[in-house]
């Protein structure tokens, strides 16, 4: 056993010395680096959330509600010897130094926090997240205004205090005392406020409390635990996640292409070697054993090097995203290491299988006849097995996502088309050869004489250029989507929580300052609870049950004319006669996700009361328009009996910024959201993500370029032989160079045409279907 390994190692070292495994090794390292870097980072992120779940949540079990928590729940928790604290959370705008900033206000009872050191927060004092101070040029002791009250900054929030929502927060947090809330005059009936009861204590007692409270939860109430935290994080990383998947897939593709090209050359160069071994008496089994062991060694070496490089790269990612991460990342687990070795082994065996399947069967007579008489049926079985294995692996790496399915299908189709196009190109060249002469004829003949090499190179070059184009196009689309949709007068502020009593005055206020508002819409918060008389979770398909819209309060509105960017796709518009009727208009994607149809009876719970309405139309909504939009719209007057607030959006130029201060001062209950700064911060996060991924991709591009050069050089073996003969026959250097130029020009033109065409189609479909 050991002697076989020794033989494999000594042969491998000699081949490496001659530079024969370098391309394969480099391609494998690159694929492993990309995959493990991303996996290390996401693994650490997930572990960070798991490990700090209690701290992140602020308790072992949290009850979240959009209405105040009943006292009896607190008493029950106390009777189970659980520690409890109350938190009230809502988004608000604070003002300081004539500047406004959107913040997440967290008002806490004196028992808060349940873990770690008490905050010792004084009356009308706040603790702010470290990011807030430089944003508003604030220092400790300065005053900020929240609603109608002024607060002194007592200090910074300790870094290890709970995050209460997700690991990725856009707006900075401000912590204040719960008993200071009335002074702000911000919280009104119907306001978008989240009440939380934090509990902590013995695990059994926590579970007992969970068992007791769960059956009592209403539609607007939920229990938060580690699982829900994870979901939050994943949904906020959704786009980045898909982009990462795309990069991984293309990296595997590029590295695989490089390995395939290199393997081809490897096989051609090794026929004679293997024939000689066989001639000298090496049995087929021994040759297979040597190659198999060499594969394992190469896979292990590439795995180890790639994992190390991946670890270093993820440290770089950590520094890029450090600003947005609110907790230190713990060390990674063993999963990425396992994944790294699996990737290198599987990629090598799948892409390089011909070395094991073809080479050992080389006849010793190859030394005399230079032909192989290999039986192809076994190789075909091998191709099918490896292809299935590889596709399953890629599909698994990409979490069995729609994106993976789409890309894999597209690539298989593209390869199929390329095969057909290649046949057409060759037949076209055959015709061109007949009517051409000189170096053009020679250059074109090179394709016809080596159709297999030409076909493989054309396919490989096209796929790689296509991948780069798709990735670039999706990235630009992702980042540009938001920016291009914003004309100069696009609303950059949202005002909500406008009470019905203040509405006319607020409108007057806008009119006075000649600020055009988009429109003002009533807003009621409620949940979908039933469909055609059945509880909603039972009435819809299983895969739709985890839909976010079913597990939170939705903002619903009532109006006759929908916002301008809404279009009816099924059903009809309402008219005056429909006022007050229990009908409902549903956003298109929500309807399709929940499998809702026109005529379905949808049940809602609004402020503790139930309401059933018939779906009368389905609308498409442009969520990127920055105008107020709603999943669910009722006809006017249908929601009159429920507490409602109003929402609007408007555009303010920089010179009009004092208007906001006056508005907030005059109407303290109004919440203003500065969309421009939120958008800017989201774009910042996305662009950082994109640039991080771009760095990853740049590495891949450089590698691809290097691999291409190497592959081109490898195909030069055949060309060199032909041109050497031509030289002997008297061809001039100029003739040979111009023939090469003709050959590569054709290859380049075909590659560019095919890759641009495929990239255009696939990226447009990708953006339309996936992103």
């Amino acid at each position: 056993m050991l002697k076989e390994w020794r033989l494999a190692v000594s042969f491998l070292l000699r081949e490496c010395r001659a530079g024969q495994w370098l391309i394969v090794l480099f391609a494998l390292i690159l694929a492993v680096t990309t995959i493990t870097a991303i996996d290390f980072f996401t693994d650490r992120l997930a572990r960070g959330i798991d490990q700090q779940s209690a701290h992140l949540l602020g308790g072992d079990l949290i009850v979240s509600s959009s209405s105040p928590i009943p006292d009896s729940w607190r008493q029950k928790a106390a009777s189970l010897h659980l520690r409890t604290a109350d938190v009230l959370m809502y988004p608000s705008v604070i003002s300081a130094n004539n500047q406004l900033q959107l913040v997440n206000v967290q008002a806490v009872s004196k028992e808060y926090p349940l873990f770690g050191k008490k905050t010792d927060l004084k009356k009308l004092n706040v603790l702010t997240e470290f990011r807030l101070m430089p944003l508003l040029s604030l220092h400790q002791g300065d005053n900020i205004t929240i609603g109608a009250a002024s607060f002194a900054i007592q200090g910074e929030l300790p870094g290890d205090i709970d995050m209460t929502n997700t690991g990725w927060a856009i707006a900075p947090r401000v912590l204040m005392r719960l008993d200071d809330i009335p002074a702000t005059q911000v919280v009104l009936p119907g306001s978008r406020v989240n009440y939380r009861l934090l509990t902590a204590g013995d695990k059994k007692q926590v579970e007992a409390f969970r068992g007791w409270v769960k059956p009592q939860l209403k539609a607007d109430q939920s229990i938060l635990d580690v699982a829900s935290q994870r979901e939050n994080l994943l949904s906020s990383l959704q786009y980045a996640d898909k982009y990462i998947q795309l990069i991984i897939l293309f990296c595997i593709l590029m590295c695989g292409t490089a390995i395939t090209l290199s393997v081809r050359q490897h096989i051609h160069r090794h026929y004679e070697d293997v024939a000689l071994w066989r001639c000298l008496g090496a049995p087929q089994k021994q040759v297979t054993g040597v190659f198999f062991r060499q594969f394992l060694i190469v896979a292990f070496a590439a795995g180890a090097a790639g994992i190390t490089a991946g670890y270093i790269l993820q440290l770089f990612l950590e520094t890029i995203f450090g600003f947005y991460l609110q907790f230190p990342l713990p060390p990674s687990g063993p999963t990425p290491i396992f994944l790294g070795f699996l990737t290198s082994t599987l990629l090598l065996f799948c892409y390089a299988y011909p070395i094991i399947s073809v080479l050992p069967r080389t006849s010793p007579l190859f030394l005399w006849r230079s032909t192989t008489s290999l039986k192809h049926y076994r190789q075909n079985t091998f191709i099918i097995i490896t292809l299935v294995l590889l596709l399953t692996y890629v599909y698994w790496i990409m979490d069995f996502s729609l994106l993976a399915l789409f890309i894999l299908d597209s690539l298989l189709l593209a390869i199929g088309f390329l095969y057909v196009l290649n046949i057409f190109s060759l037949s076209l060249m055959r015709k061109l050869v007949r009517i051409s002469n000189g170096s053009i004829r020679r250059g074109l003949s090179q394709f016809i004489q080596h159709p297999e090499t030409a076909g493989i190179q054309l396919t490989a070059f096209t796929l790689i250029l296509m991948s780069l184009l798709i990735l670039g196009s999706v990235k630009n689309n992702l980042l540009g989507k938001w920016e291009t949709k914003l004309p100069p007068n696009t609303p950059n502020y949202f005002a909500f929580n406008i009470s019905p009593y203040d509405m006319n005055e607020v409108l007057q206020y806008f009119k006075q300052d000649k600020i055009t508002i988009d429109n003002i819409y009533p807003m009621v918060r409620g949940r979908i609870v039933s469909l055609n008389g059945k509880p909603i979770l039972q009435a819809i398909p299983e895969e739709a049950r985890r839909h976010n819209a079913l597990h939170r309060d939705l903002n619903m509105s009532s109006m006759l004319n929908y916002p301008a960017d809404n279009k009816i796709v099924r059903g009809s518009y309402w008219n005056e006669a429909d006022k007050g009727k229990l009908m409902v208009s549903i956003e298109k994607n929500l309807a399709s996700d929940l499998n809702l149809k026109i005529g379905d009876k949808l049940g809602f719970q609004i402020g503790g009361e139930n309401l059933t309405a018939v779906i009368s139309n389905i609308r498409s909504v442009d969520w990127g328009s920055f105008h107020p939009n709603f999943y669910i719209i009722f006809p006017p007057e249908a929601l009159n009996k429920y507490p409602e607030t109003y929402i609007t959006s408007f555009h303010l130029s920089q010179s009009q910024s004092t208007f906001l201060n006056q508005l907030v001062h005059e109407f303290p209950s109004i919440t203003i959201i500065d969309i421009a700064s939120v958008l800017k911060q989201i774009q910042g996060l996305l662009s950082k993500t994109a640039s991080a991924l771009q760095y990853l991709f740049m590495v891949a591009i450089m590698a691809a370029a290097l691999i291409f050069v190497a592959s081109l050089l490898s195909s030069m073996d055949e060309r060199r032989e032909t041109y050497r003969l031509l030289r002997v026959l008297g061809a001039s250097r100029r003739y040979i160079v111009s023939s090469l130029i003709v050959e590569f020009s054709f290859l380049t033109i075909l590659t560019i045409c095919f890759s641009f065409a495929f990239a255009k189609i696939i990226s447009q479909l990708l953006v339309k279907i996936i992103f």
Partner: protein
Amino acid sequence: MNIKTGETVAIVGASGSGKTTLLSILAGLDLPTSGEVYFDQQPLHQLGEEERAKLRAKNVGFIFQSFQLLPTLTALENVMLPLEIQYVPPKQARTEASEWLKRVGLGARLHHYPKRLSGGEQQRVAIARAFVNKRKIIFSDEMTGNLDVQTGRLVTDILFSLNQEFQTTLVLVTHDERLSSRCEKRYVLNEGILQSC
């Protein structure tokens, strides 16, 4: 055709007469469509490819017209190859291979790659490789075909002197009259008929 231990046999004939095919059948590389071949009383024509490979590994050496040295290996490593295939420990393989290279006059060129050796030197490496395992029988296919007359003679001298020393059986396929005349037995292959002369 009967070849005894230690004999030197030449097979001559026109191009395309089937000399190389005959050699590959005798060496157990190929199977005859009809007829029988025995090596040490073992019926080669009845053995499978793997059994014939085992037999070659122990008993058969080859010298080719185009040398067939692996370009990525040094002269020493090329000679070590047959030993390594038989799992001879590396140290022993290295010592044996370097001794054989010294015997063929290449003691100073152990670590040279084939492309840095002349045609004659490459063929001497091939001779060392053929003898290294103390093979019973060595098949040579046009071994002087790629060499000039003087070098060819030098290489032939080495081959025959080693043959004398180790009593190896030599089967040579050649066009070279001078080379065939040095063999104890000569056969001519003409239109599929093998005749002793």
